[in-house]
């Protein structure tokens, strides 16, 4: 019964989304407040319908209703409750339903929170959002319905892929989708602005909070995914330049560029066309990501629940929506009047450079991701583009960006003082240089690029702190005055500082981990030893463990450094009974921010006693890789709490900035 209710609510959501798009388009044409109100009600209704549908699906998973095909294929009675719930978005159908829930949710949020938006802009934007909702819901209802029944239903389900049965991965899709789909609001606003023919400071101010929210959620979502890959796949890495990873990274890069260009449009009225272009591109990359991930056209480590035939439908949706958006852009963009002149050395110029570099980096990632498809279509040869390509293209572009980053915030709008900025940064530059030299001198083996990367990380953090000191006039006025000034800084400034520091923390972790990680693999009998980076691990014993839906071999090891007991890692090798798949549970010892990472491999029969293949990794500063993005997302959240960016921003916003 509840499943039927869910199926009905899903169709109702589709009907309401279509009605929302039509009503609001009509409301805009007739300038009718009554129709607009009705349309907003429908947006809310569509969200509530989708919420009911989603809860119904989760319920079907929780009670293991195997007469629902989707549940039978992705759940199992022996699965713990958390993973039965997470199973609801572990399949193709369920994840698209989550996507639609987020899409209508954002529509309802714009309707509810955008009380002070100009009526025309709001009606147009919500009409576009309704159209997006209608298209994706139509796809869900007709091609990817999660409520289809099986008759008769099986007694037991096929279970969710055990690799996905993990807390980080249970949370990863909701965050990622909330981020991906948050960009739909920005897309709708951009299309609405093109229809209205007006892109000004006020428009940029309404777009920024949505971009910020989506960007922060996307940052968290990607980080959770990387964290999962790090400790669940069990081979020590956290980013593989895999197509699926790239398709979440490209919207992030574009959203980052948009975040910065929207500031220029808001503060100075400049770059309106470019900002609109990025707003369209951001969600187009989200849709491209959905297509690449869900269709399985590219071979990926993380491709779960793919379906090539339905992938084509997603490609068509991408073509229509993105194509329509960009067609409108080429038609209307020339009429946008650029405002705000600025000198070559100015904050505007710095942000333009940021955008150029981010756009170039996105383009190289896009090309590298799609090149196997292009090449295969052209020559029929199957190839793969691996990490070396991305390291070669993406890294230098980013290095230039990071090198210039601390300078930007110290330049004034309109006409900046390069010399003045340099004077304020000499301490930071000295510190960065010292860090680079110290790392080069002290760490073994010697790695020049790694040391330069560490210097860059220090430069970002020190540069952000220097900028803060400048704002507080530290050391030039009494300390109390400095604190007062810092306390009165707008939240947006703190958000920026946090985000830039977070990036620096990430760069430190990523460079050090990549440059100086050590690993060792060995077949070890009970009592045997394995060494890595000065740590000596002894395999004490291995015994059987029974979990709710798996059986495992759990090894108990003892890690010592110079005779001192560091920790006793207990890695597992699990055999999931439904499906018969084995997975590894990594054991991680935290040594400050560094990780000693231990994997128990398969049992091998040697002459006499059995041996286990034990792999041990030393991942120095690995914690910073995940901490950095978390700080960045926190910066986004702090910035979002700035009064000027409150979602229901007041009439003041209409006054010229």
């Amino acid at each position, binding site marked *: 019964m509840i499943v039927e209710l869910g199926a009905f609510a899903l169709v109702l959501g589709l009907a309401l989304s279509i009605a929302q798009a039509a009503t609001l388009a009509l409301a805009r044409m007739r300038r009718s407040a009554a129709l607009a109100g009705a349309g907003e009600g429908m947006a809310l209704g569509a969200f509530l319908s989708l919420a009911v549908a989603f809860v119904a699906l989760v319920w079907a998973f929780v009670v293991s209703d195997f007469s629902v095909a989707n549940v039978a294929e992705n759940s199992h009675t022996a699965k713990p409750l958390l993973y039965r719930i997470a199973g609801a978005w572990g399949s193709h159908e369920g994840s698209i339903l989550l996507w639609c829930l987020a899409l209508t949710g954002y529509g309802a949020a714009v309707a509810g929170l955008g009380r002070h938006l100009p009526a025309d802009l709001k009606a147009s934007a919500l009409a576009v959002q309704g159209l997006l909702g209608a298209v994706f819901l139509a796809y869900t209802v007709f091609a990817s319905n999660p409520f289809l029944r099986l008759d008769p239903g099986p007694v037991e389900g096929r279970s969710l892929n055990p690799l996905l049965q993990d807390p980080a991965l249970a949370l990863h899709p909701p965050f990622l989708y909330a981020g991906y789909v948050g960009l739909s609001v920005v897309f709708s606003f951009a299309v609405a602005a093109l229809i209205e023919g007006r892109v000004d400071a006020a428009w940029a101010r309404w777009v920024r909070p949505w971009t910020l929210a989506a960007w922060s959620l996307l940052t968290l979502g990607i980080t959770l995914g990387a964290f999962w890959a790090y400790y669940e796949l069990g081979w020590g890495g956290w980013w593989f330049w895999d197509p699926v990873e790239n398709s979440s990274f490209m919207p992030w890069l574009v959203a980052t560029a948009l975040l910065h260009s929207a500031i220029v449009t808001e503060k100075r009225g400049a770059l309106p066309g470019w900002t609109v272009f990025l707003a369209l591109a951001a969600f187009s990359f989200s849709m491209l990501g959905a297509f690449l991930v869900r269709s399985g056209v590219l*071979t990926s480590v*993380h491709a779960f629940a793919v379906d090539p035939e339905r*992938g084509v439908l997603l490609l068509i949706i991408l073509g229509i929506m993105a194509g329509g958006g960009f067609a409108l852009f080429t038609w209307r963009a020339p009429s946008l009047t650029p405002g705000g002149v600025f000198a*070559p050395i100015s904050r505007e110029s710095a942000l333009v450079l940021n955008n150029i570099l981010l756009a170039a980096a996105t383009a190289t990632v896009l090309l590298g991701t799609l090149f196997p498809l292009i090449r295969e279509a052209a020559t029929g040869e*199957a190839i793969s583009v691996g990490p070396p390509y991305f390291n070669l293209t993406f890294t*230098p572009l980013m290095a230039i960006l990071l090198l210039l980053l601390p300078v930007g915030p110290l330049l004034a709008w309109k006409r900046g003082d390069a010399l003045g900025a340099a004077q304020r940064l000499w301490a930071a530059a000295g510190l960065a240089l010292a860090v680079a030299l110290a790392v080069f001198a002290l760490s073994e083996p010697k790695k020049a690029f790694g040391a330069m990367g560490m210097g860059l990380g220090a430069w970002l953090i020190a540069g952000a702190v220097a900028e803060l000191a400048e704002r507080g006039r530290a050391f030039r006025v009494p300390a109390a005055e400095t604190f007062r000034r810092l306390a009165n800084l707008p939240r947006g400034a703190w958000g920026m500082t946090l985000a830039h520091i977070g990036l620096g923390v990430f760069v430190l972790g990523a460079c050090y981990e990549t440059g100086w990680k050590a690993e060792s693999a060995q077949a070890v009998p009970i009592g045997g030893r394995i060494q890595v980076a000065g740590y000596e691990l002894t395999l004490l014993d291995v015994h059987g463990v029974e979990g709710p839906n798996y059986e495992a071999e759990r090894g108990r090891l003892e890690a010592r450094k110079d005779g001192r007991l560091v920790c006793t890692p207990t890695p597992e090798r699990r055999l999931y009974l439904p499906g018969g798949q084995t997975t590894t549970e990594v054991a991680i010892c935290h040594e400050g921010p560094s990780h000693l990472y231990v994997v128990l491999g398969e049992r091998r029969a040697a002459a006499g006693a059995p041996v286990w293949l034990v792999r041990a990794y030393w991942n120095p500063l690995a914690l910073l890789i995940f901490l950095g993005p978390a700080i960045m997302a926190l910066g986004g959240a702090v910035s979002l709490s700035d009064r000027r960016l409150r979602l229901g921003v007041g009439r003041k916003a209409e006054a010229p900035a």
Partner: protein
Amino acid sequence: MSWLPKSRTARRRLLVLAAIAPVLVLAVGLTLWGLSDSISYFYTPSQAAAADPKPGQSIQLGGLVQPGSVVKHPDGRVDFTVADQQASAKVSFSGDLPDLFREGQGIVATGAFDEAGVFQAREVLAKHDENYMPKEVEEALKEQGEWRGDGAVAGYQKTGTR
């Protein structure tokens, strides 16, 4: 500077172009270099035999693990044979195999042939799915020499010793 255009808009356009040009040149240059240098070809054993890649050249080798060919040494080395309809290749891999590595299973190994013609794998991908894949589909895919079309069967799991 008299050569600069007079109008402010034109000047700004010139400025933006001046900033874009070097980044564009850098990005395009790096991309071309990267694509010529760091892509790897995908071969089945018979295609590899025909193409005869140089020893040490990094490629991907895909095929079925021949039943009975897997020899696991106590020191962690694994030798096995990857085959397609026409040819087979010996593969040697050091490290933990993917959890779903089995005889008769489709795998993709990344690495290079050594002087002796043994494929030294750095990384082994195994299709990680419990669903049965029909033989015809597998053969059809193999005839096309392409494994990336098998997205319909869930995904891959990868392991490596990088």
